């Protein structure tokens, strides 16, 4: 029996079809509705919930009233316990946060939510990495890695989860898009944080050569490797991200998930540093290296969540002292394209272009191009 939470952001993706990007903000929402936009997210969610009907007997569903989940459940023919209260037609991000918080307190097995990047951020604010969640995509610009590919695959993954076929979880990125800039046609996503989602490790029979490793093992192995290869009397600037967090864990060191920490001889000497603090620390050491991972779906090494490691910091440390580590699956998802860098400084971006050794496992390295 699995206890499932279900939250719908009824206004997610509402702007898309009428040519508006995103739907955050009351003004935009009002404008969209004036233009005749229809609330789409409920319909998308229905696809997923109908698939769950088949495993209904193994499910206990908890949801929020009306357009925030109750309606979809009813339409899908699913029994659900309705929690909380809303003002119909005037739901806000706070409602999403309240719903997720209550579901976290109920210690549900998984919280399924429908929405876009904004919704993902709301869920994250509410539960952090303390609950397992999964997103059904219904926004029109999804950069966060917490979403299934589409409502149908969400349903398939959920079915497998309910049947106990998917047991692993992994950390997925929640991205923060600058909405204003986006409406001007500029995509600038920043790492906002992480959510824990089910990790489907597809068992592909491969009888001639074995198989690849899962995310967890890849990160385990590369963390061991980076930790083993760390040298004495070298200052390490450790960037943001769950992969670098894993490395710090291997070293038994405290870590700021969304901040930059500095390590020397296996001790943390400064946490959650600003650019200024980094620039002050660096000159005190002969040898300095940077350890970073890859953020976001486009493979950004600098510029999407570790702004503290600025162009200036990078210039002082030097291109040859940059260590990049990321899970094999992450790197393979970039196959066909390259790593990217956006420090905000053209010159430094140019300098950073070229080939890099990316650590993806123990003694396992992939050679990737970096472009700006």
């Amino acid at each position, binding site marked *: 029996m699995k206890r499932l939470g279900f939250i719908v952001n009824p206004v997610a993706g509402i702007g898309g079809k009428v040519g508006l990007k995103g739907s955050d903000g009351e003004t935009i929402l009002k404008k969209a509705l004036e233009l005749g936009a229809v609330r789409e997210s409920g319909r998308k969610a229905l696809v997923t919930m109908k698939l769950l009907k088949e495993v209904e007997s193994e499910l206990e569903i908890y949801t929020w009233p009306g357009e925030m989940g109750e309606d979809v459940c009813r339409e899908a023919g699913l029994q659900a316990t309705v929690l909380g209260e809303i003002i119909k037609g005037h739901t806000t991000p706070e409602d999403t946060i309240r719903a997720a918080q209550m579901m976290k307190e109920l210690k549900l097995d998984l919280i399924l939510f429908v929405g876009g990047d904004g919704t993902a951020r709301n869920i994250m604010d509410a539960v952090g990495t303390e609950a397992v969640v999964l997103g059904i995509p219904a926004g029109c610009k999804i950069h966060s890695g917490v979403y299934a590919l589409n409502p149908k695959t969400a349903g398939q993954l959920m079915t497998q989860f309910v049947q106990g076929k998917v047991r692993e979880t992994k950390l997925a990125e929640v991205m923060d898009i600058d909405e204003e800039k986006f409406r001007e046609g500029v995509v600038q996503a920043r790492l906002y944080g992480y959510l824990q989602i089910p990790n489907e490790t597809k068992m592909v029979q491969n*009888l001639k050569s074995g198989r690849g*490793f*899962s995310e967890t*093992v890849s990160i*385990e192995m590369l963390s061991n490797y980076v930790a083993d290869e760390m040298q004495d009397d070298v200052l390490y600037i450790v960037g943001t991200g769950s992969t670098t967090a894993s490395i710090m864990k291997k070293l038994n060191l405290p870590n700021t998930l969304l901040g930059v920490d500095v390590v020397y001889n296996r001790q943390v000497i400064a946490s959650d540093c600003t650019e200024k603090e980094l620039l002050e620390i660096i000159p005190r050491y002969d040898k300095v290296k940077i350890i970073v991972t890859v953020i976001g779906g486009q493979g950004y090494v600098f510029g999407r969540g570790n702004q503290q490691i600025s162009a200036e910091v990078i210039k002082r440390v030097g291109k040859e002292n940059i260590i990049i580590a990321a899970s094999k699956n992450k790197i393979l998802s970039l196959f066909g394209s390259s790593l990217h860098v956006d420090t905000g400084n053209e010159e430094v971006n140019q300098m950073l272009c070229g080939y890099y050794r990316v650590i993806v496992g123990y003694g396992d390295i992939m050679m990737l191009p970096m472009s700006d």
Partner: protein
Amino acid sequence: MSGKQFVHPYIPNSEPVVKKQMLDAVGMESVEEIYKGIPDHLRFKGTMELPDPIISEYTCQRHVEGLLAQNRNAKSNICFLGGGTWNHYVPSVVDTIMERDEFLTCYVGDAYTDHGKFQALFESSSMLADLTGFEACNTPTYDWANAIAIACRMAERTTGRKEILVAGNMDPDRLLVVRNYCKPEMVVNTVAYDKETGLMDLEDLKAKLSDQTACVYFENPIYIGALEVNAAEICSIAKEAGALSMVGVDPTSLGILEAPAAYGADYAVGDLQPLGLHMSYGAGLGGFICTKDEKEFLGEYPSLLFGVCETQQEGEYGFGEVYYERTSYASREKGKDFIGTTTALHGIAAAVYMALMGPQGFKELGEGIVQRVAYVKEELAKIPGITIPVSGYSYCDFMVDFNGTGKTVKEINKALLEYNILGGKDISGIFPEYGQSALYSVTEVHTKEDLQALFDALKAICA
């Protein structure tokens, strides 16, 4: 292509009309257009210096048979060689199954179209597990030597320790394979043995065991021709030191000898060859590794493991690959192995053999062999100049000491050829402490007349 007048029976599309149709379909004049992308300086411009092709099958048969006729074989000679490849009887049913194109020419298909192969290999693993007393067994590796080597690395991963202790009198060729495979991280050291009994020196074992020992390996039967009487004790001594124990066995001996799992071994390894495979100049090998069905052990197999799986058809035995993702107990993924094409077909041969023999067959086989071996040792010891240097009972293989004859093993073996006898393996270079000794092997294929022929020949030669 030079002007060949015929279409090769194995290359149907070389038929000119067909070839032209295909070239037309791809819009090319000749195959050269496919190769045109290869830079000129990378092209091979010469001709391969090979003999003219023997295009008639009959002519080729005469040629190859002519070469094979130059080999002295165990059908027209009495062969007393063993030690890793043995001369056992191969039942006709085994040959029949081995010759079938289905098993012979399939490869890596999934169980949907190759269901039979999966079931046959599953049964093979099952029966090997019965013999050794375990519940997990791999799909075969290259040979016994590689089985030991792979199991050593499995032990390393399970325990996190990097030292292997092996019996000092294990087969030296197997030891060479193990040493190479254990590099660079693992250290292989040998444990002393008693010259007269062949048994492992338990004091030396205890002295060499440390908290870095992953595994202790010994063979039973012992290569130089004894039975490891202290098997259980070796396993328990290893266990006390926190090490695992591994025994190399002759699977055909397990009808009468105790199952390794029962006396405390953690792994049993060995060769499939004596289970229905012709000697074939060392081709008939296959390595098995049996161990416990616990994730600390089974999870470390690098090889494919075939397990039972349900299918949409109720009651059908489906198969799939059992996969347990290692979560790095040893926290280091160095010593990661590789898997590839090994000796699957031999696993199937072994399955057929084991099914034919059954428990009664193995019991009678083993009983008969130890009887014949005891008899031969007794009779040989009567010949002046010949002694049996290692005491105790033997299974198939045993050492014969010719030092008293004043002749070298080389000379004696050469002389034995006159009698159409292939004498035992010359050990003088391998275990010099035994001087001019040879490793002889007697199995169920040796009749009393065969054995008498040996006694008579040796009597004459050594006089």
